[in-house]
């Protein structure tokens, strides 16, 4: 897949666990795991907005395009 997700790196930088992010964002751990492992086929703007807000980052810090 061309788009990869580097959520764990940002989580490590912020010292936040996936469970904590899940509680703050209101997305299940199962869904965040799907996102973290780059298995997700799509991400809602609302989810991306909530993640960026909680992690204080830009979408480009999480999502990368790989050729």
């Amino acid at each position, binding site marked *: 897949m061309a788009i990869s997700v580097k959520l764990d790196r940002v989580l490590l930088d912020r010292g936040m666990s996936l469970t904590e992010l899940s509680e703050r964002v209101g997305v299940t751990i199962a869904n965040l795991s799907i996102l973290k492992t780059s*298995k*997700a086929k799509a991400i809602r703007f609302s989810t991306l907005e909530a993640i960026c807000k909680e992690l204080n980052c830009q979408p480009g810090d999480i999502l990368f395009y790989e050729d």
Partner: protein
Amino acid sequence: MRAIGKGSLASILAVGLNFTRIFLWIGFVGLSIAMVLVPLASVIAELVQDIDGVNLDADISAGRDDYLKLAHQFVNFGVMLFVVNRLLEILKTLRFGSPFVKENADRFRGVGYALLIGQGSVIAFGFLSLIFDADIEIDMSPIAWLAIIAVFVLSEVFREGARMKEEQDLTV
């Protein structure tokens, strides 16, 4: 009344199909045994004749046309059994989970091919009945051909549904 779920129309249909499957299995096993025994009928008759006290006057030898009728019914029962089994598997997913899975698309495709074989056998046995002068009723129904096309279309609808469901499940 609900169409899907527990105690729904789908459940009633499943019960009906389960009974049908039992009858079809009995018929299919019976026909399978007959398929093996009928060609051996004259040999069996001779063996029975050798037993003391047995007097077998009746002619039990089967002609080619009888065997053709038997083979025709054997294929019919086989196709019906396959279709009923696939429909029961589809109904199971309908009652206890999501019907939009890739397996159901494959099952519908299988049903389509089975019906195609069924209709193909009607033509084949019809042709053979002309050659061997067997009395086999050839029922070339246009509805059956339309149903086959509809089943193949339905298979693709389920494939697309499964794709959309997967996409929905993997949308965060």
